[in-house]
C-alpha cells in the first residue's frame, strides 16, 4: 500500500468512526416548560460553628514540633477555631474559617462574592518547623556572629579554653507565614479574569557550615526571607475549547546578604579575624504563559502550553575583603526559561485510545561571566576562576496506545524519550528511552488488577574533558549524567466491594551503571503498600494498612589512581503499618488510630571485599490517637482527645557530636530527633444557624 493510499484509508476511517460516534451518541433536547425546581432546597441564610478548648502537650520539644504541629514545648495551648458561611439573595455569599488560632499553625480564610460572578478570598497560613532546641553555640547570633571578648582560639574545639563557659542555647527552626488575596470575576459569558497576590515570609534560623579547609564551624544562621508574588490572567472558554493567558512576577528578598563570623580557630590572619558566607541573593522571577485546549471530533482532544520565564539577580556582591578590584560589584544574573508543549488524546473507537505529549524546555543562562580571584575559605589565595553558567535544552516525547480487548481486559503499550542537551557541562547530552507494557484485568466482583513492566536506557554522550573538574575521573558514573539501564515492574490491585475495599501497589526497579567502575554502580528498589478498609455501615468503619520498602545502592571511589579502591553499600529499609476505626453510636463518636513506622539505614564502606559496617541509622515512630465525641444536641458537641507519640532515632552523623567532641568541627551539638509526647485535649463545638436548627 502506497503512503497516499494509507492517508486516504486513515481519512476514511476517521470519517466513518466520526459518523458512528455521532450517530451513536446524539445530544438531546429538553422541554423545560414544567421545570420549576420547587423541591430544590437551595442554600440560604447563615450557619456557623465555634470550637473552644484546651490542649496540653506533655513532653513536647523541638523534635515533636518538627512535624508542623506548632507544639514545640511542654505546656498548654488554646484550641480555638471558628467557621461560618452566609448565602443571601442573588447568590451573594461570605464564608470564613479560622483554625488552630491558639497555635502557630493557625490559618484563616475569608471568602466573599456572588456565585457565578465574582469571588474574593483572603488567606493566612502558618507553618512552623522546629528543628533543634538543645543546640548550643559560643557565638552571639546575628548577621555578624561574634565570640566573647575572652575567647581563646585554638586549633581544635577541645583546645578552646573558653568554649564551655561561653556556650549558650540557641534554637533552630523556621516559621513560614503565607498571606494571600485572590479574586476572580466573570466579565462576559465566556471570559473571566483572575488575580492573586501572595506574600510568603520565612523567619528563624538554620544550621550553616563554614569551613577552613580542614576545620569547620557550625553556625546558627538567622534567616529572614520574603517572597512576594503577583499573578494575573484571563480565561476564555467556549463549549469545546478554552484559553488561559497569565502573567506572574515574584520577588525574593533576604534581610542579610552575608553572614560574617569570627574565627574560633587560628586559621585567619591579617586585618580580619572574620570569615563571611553569602546568603541567598535577592532575585526576581517573571513569567507569562498561554495554555489552550480544544475538544476534537472522535472523542479526541488537543492542548498546548507556551511559557517564557526570566530569572534575574542584580544584587550587589559581597565587598572584597582582600583588596584589589573585583571584575564587578554586582552580579548581572539573567536566566531565560522557555516551555513549549502539546498534548493529544483520542479514543475514536470504544476499544482503542491513544495519548501523546511532546514538550521542549530550555534554560538559557545569559548571566555575566568574568574571572574571579578566589580566596578559598577566606584564607587561601587561589587561581582566578571564571563562573560557569549551566543551560540545557530538554525535549520529551511520550505516548501510549491502549486496546480494550474485551470488557474485562485491556492491553497497552507506552514509551517515552527524554533528551537533554547541556551547555557548560561535563556531559553534553543524555538521552533516556523507556518502553513498557501494561495489562488491566477486571474479572468482576469489583476487582481490578493492573500489571506494568518495561525497561529504560540512558545514553550519555559528548564528554567535554575541559569541563571535568580538577582531578575527577571523566568516566565516573554520575547519578544523572551516566549511562544507565533500568528494568522495572509494578502491580496495582484494587477491590471495591460492598463493605470491604482493598488497594495495593507493588513495584520493583533495578538500575545498572555499567560503563564505569567508579561512582554509582547499581541501584535497586522493592516496595509494597496496601490498605484494607471495612465499612459495614455508615456509622462503623475500620482500616488496616501497611507497607515495605528497600532501596539499595552500591558505589565505588578511589584515592588517587584511576582504579576503584573502595566501595560503599547503602541500604535503606522502611516499614509501616497502622490500623484504626470509627464508630458512631447514637450521640457518641469514637475514633481510634495506631501507626507504626520504622526506618533502618545500613551503611558499609571499605576496600573491596572488606566493607565495614557503620552503626545502623534507625528511626521508630509510634502514634496512638483516641477520641470520643458526644453530641449533646444538634448545636453542641463535646470532644475529648488523647494522642501519644513516641519517636526515637539513632544516627551516627549526630550521635556523640557535641561542640568539642570532634577535632576539626566546632559543632552545635544537634541531636537526632527523640520525643515521647502525650497530648490531652478537651473542646466543645457550638453550631448555630440554619443547619443547627436555629435559623
Amino acid at each position: 500500500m502506497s503512503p497516499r493510499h494509507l492517508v486516504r484509508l486513515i481519512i476514511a476511517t476517521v470519517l466513518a468512526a466520526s459518523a458512528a460516534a455521532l450517530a451513536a451518541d446524539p445530544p438531546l433536547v429538553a422541554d423545560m416548560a414544567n421545570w420549576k425546581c420547587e423541591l430544590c432546597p437551595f442554600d440560604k441564610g447563615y450557619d456557623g460553628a465555634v470550637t473552644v478548648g484546651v490542649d496540653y502537650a506533655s513532653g513536647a520539644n523541638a523534635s515533636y514540633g518538627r512535624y508542623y504541629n506548632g507544639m514545640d514545648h511542654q505546656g498548654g495551648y488554646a484550641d480555638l477555631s471558628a467557621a461560618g458561611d452566609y448565602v443571601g439573595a442573588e447568590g451573594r455569599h461570605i464564608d470564613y474559617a479560622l483554625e488552630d488560632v491558639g497555635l502557630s499553625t493557625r490559618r484563616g480564610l475569608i471568602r466573599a462574592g456572588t456565585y457565578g460572578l465574582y469571588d474574593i478570598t483572603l488567606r493566612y497560613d502558618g507553618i512552623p518547623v522546629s528543628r533543634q532546641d538543645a543546640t548550643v553555640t559560643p557565638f552571639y547570633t546575628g548577621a555578624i556572629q561574634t565570640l566573647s571578648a575572652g575567647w581563646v582560639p585554638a586549633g581544635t574545639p577541645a583546645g578552646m579554653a573558653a568554649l564551655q563557659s561561653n556556650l549558650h542555647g540557641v534554637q533552630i527552626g523556621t516559621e513560614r507565614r503565607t498571606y494571600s488575596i485572590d479574586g476572580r470575576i466573570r466579565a462576559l459569558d465566556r471570559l473571566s479574569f483572575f488575580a492573586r497576590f501572595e506574600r510568603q515570609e520565612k523567619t528563624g534560623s538554620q544550621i550553616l557550615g563554614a569551613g577552613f579547609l580542614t576545620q569547620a564551624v557550625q553556625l546558627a544562621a538567622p534567616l529572614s526571607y520574603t517572597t512576594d508574588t503577583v499573578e494575573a490572567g484571563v480565561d476564555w472558554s467556549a463549549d469545546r475549547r478554552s484559553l488561559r493567558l497569565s502573567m506572574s512576577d515574584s520577588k525574593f528578598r533576604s534581610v542579610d546578604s552575608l553572614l560574617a563570623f569570627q574565627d574560633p580557630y587560628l586559621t585567619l590572619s591579617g586585618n580580619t579575624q572574620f570569615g563571611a558566607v553569602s546568603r541567598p541573593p535577592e532575585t526576581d522571577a517573571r513569567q507569562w504563559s498561554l495554555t489552550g485546549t480544544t475538544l476534537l471530533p472522535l472523542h479526541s482532544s488537543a492542548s498546548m502550553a507556551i511559557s517564557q520565564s526570566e530569572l534575574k539577580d542584580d544584587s550587589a556582591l559581597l565587598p572584597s575583603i582582600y583588596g584589589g578590584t573585583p571584575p564587578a560589584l554586582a552580579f548581572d544574573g539573567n536566566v531565560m526559561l522557555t516551555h513549549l508543549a502539546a498534548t493529544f488524546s483520542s479514543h475514536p473507537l470504544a476499544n482503542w485510545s491513544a495519548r501523546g505529549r511532546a514538550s521542549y524546555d530550555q534554560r538559557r543562562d545569559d548571566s555575566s561571566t568574568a574571572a574571579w580571584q578566589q580566596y578559598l575559605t577566606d584564607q587561601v589565595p587561589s587561581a582566578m576562576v571564571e563562573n560557569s553558567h549551566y543551560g540545557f535544552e530538554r525535549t520529551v516525547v511520550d505516548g501510549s496506545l491502549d486496546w480494550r480487548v474485551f470488557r474485562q481486559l485491556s492491553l497497552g503499550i507506552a514509551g517515552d524519550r527524554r533528551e537533554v542537551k547541556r551547555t557548560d557541562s561535563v556531559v553534553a547530552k543524555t538521552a533516556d528511552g523507556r518502553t513498557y507494557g501494561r495489562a488491566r484485568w477486571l474479572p468482576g466482583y469489583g476487582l481490578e488488577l493492573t500489571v506494568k513492566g518495561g525497561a529504560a536506557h540512558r545514553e550519555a554522550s559528548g564528554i567535554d574533558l575541559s569541563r571535568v573538574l580538577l582531578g575527577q575521573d571523566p568516566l565516573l558514573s554520575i547519578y544523572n549524567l551516566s549511562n544507565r539501564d533500568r528494568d522495572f515492574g509494578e502491580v496495582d490491585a484494587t477491590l471495591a466491594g460492598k463493605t470491604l475495599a482493598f488497594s495495593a501497589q507493588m513495584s520493583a526497579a533495578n538500575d545498572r551503571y555499567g560503563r564505569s567502575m567508579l561512582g554509582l554502580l547499581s541501584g535497586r528498589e522493592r516496595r509494597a503498600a496496601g490498605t484494607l478498609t471495612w465499612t459495614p455501615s455508615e456509622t462503623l468503619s475500620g482500616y488496616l494498612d501497611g507497607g515495605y520498602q528497600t532501596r539499595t545502592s552500591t558505589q565505588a571511589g578511589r584515592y588517587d589512581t584511576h582504579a576503584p579502591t573502595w566501595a560503599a553499600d547503602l541500604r535503606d529499609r522502611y516499614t509501616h503499618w497502622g490500623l484504626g476505626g470509627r464508630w458512631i453510636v447514637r450521640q457518641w463518636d469514637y475514633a481510634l488510630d495506631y501507626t507504626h513506622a520504622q526506618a533502618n539505614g545500613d551503611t558499609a564502606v571499605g576496600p573491596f571485599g572488606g566493607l565495614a559496617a557503620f552503626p545502623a541509622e534507625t528511626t521508630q515512630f509510634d502514634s496512638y490517637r483516641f477520641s470520643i465525641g458526644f453530641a449533646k444536641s444538634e448545636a453542641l458537641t463535646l470532644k475529648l482527645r488523647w494522642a501519644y507519640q513516641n519517636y526515637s532515632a539513632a544516627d551516627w552523623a549526630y550521635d556523640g557530636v557535641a561542640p568539642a567532641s570532634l577535632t576539626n568541627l566546632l559543632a552545635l551539638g544537634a541531636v537526632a530527633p527523640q520525643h515521647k509526647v502525650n497530648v490531652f485535649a478537651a473542646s466543645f463545638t457550638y453550631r448555630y444557624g440554619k443547619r443547627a436548627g436555629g435559623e
Partner: protein
Amino acid sequence: MRYGSNARPYPMNARSPCIQGSRYRALAPILVAFALWVYASAAVSASVGTYTEKGADTCLDCHEDSAVTGIFRTAHGRPTDAHAPFGHGQLQCEACHGPGDAHANGTGKSRPSVIRFGKKSQTSKEVQNEQCLTCHAKNAAHWGANAHAGNQVACGDCHTLHQPKDPVRDFRTQTLVCTSCHQARGADALKPSHHPLLEGKMGCSSCHAPHGSTAPSALKANTVTELCTTCHAENRGPFLWEHEPVAEDCSNCHDAHGATQPSLLKSRPPFLCQQCHDVQGHPSVSYGPDGLSGSGGVQRGVFLQAGSCLNCHSKVHGSNHPSGSKLMR
C-alpha cells in the same frame, strides 16, 4: 472536503485517464465515509430528548436524602450561577446524570440507570468524564493526555460532588483521597523527613495538577526546579556560582515525597555527594565507620559527621560570594 467540483485541476504532468480513474476509485471509501458522516450529523440535529417532565422535581420526589440534597450546598447547586447545573435554563440533575425520563418512569429490574459517578458506578469512565468535561474543559485543559485519563480514572473516583465540602479539595483530607490509589506515596508521607501533607498544610495538588499538565508527572510548574522554588525561592538563583544539578532538577538529590534521610535527601552525605564527585582538590576518601567520633580510628569528623560535606560546602544550592566557586562561601 468536497471532492469533484472543488477538486484541484489536473496537474500539468497528469498521467493517463486510466490512472486518474484509479485515483477516483481510491477516493471512494472517503466519499462513502463522508456520506455516513453527513447522515449522522443530520440524524443528530433531528434528535428529540427524553428528559424528565419536571426536571429536578422529578428526581427529588424520590431522592430526598441529605446525601443527594448536599449538592445544593455546593457550587453546582447555586441557582444564581447561570453556568451551574441549577442555573437558569440549565438541565439541573440531568445536566450531569443525563436524560432521566426512562429511569423515572421505569419500574423494577428493567428500570434503566441514569449516568452515575464514583468508583462503584457501572457507567463507563469515558461517559462519566465526558459529562464533566462538557463544562469543565477549561479546568482540565490537558486531561486527555493525562496519566489519570490513561489509567481509566473517572472524575467521580476522586470528587464527591454531593458533599458540601469535597474531601479532595481540602488539604486536610486530599492526601487520603489521592493515596487510596497512590499507596506508595501515602507511605512516603509517613517517613521521617516529609512535606506537611498528612498535617494538612499541603496537598498533593500543591505540586501536581491531577487534571493534567504539559510537565512531567503532571507537575503544576513547567519543571521540577521551577515548582520547588515557588516556595523555596531562596534556592532559585541565578547564582554567581551555580551547582549544576540544582539548576537542572532538584530531584537529583531530593525525594520530594518523603525520605528516610534528613532534608528529603535520597542518600546520606558524604555518599550522596560521592555519587557524582570524585577526587576534586581533596581526595575522595573512603569515609568508613572507623572515622566516626570515638571509634578509635583516624577521626574524619568534619568530613563525615554532622553536616558531612556540607560542613564546608554549605552553599550547595549556589553561592553569590566572589570567592564561592567551591560553594564554601
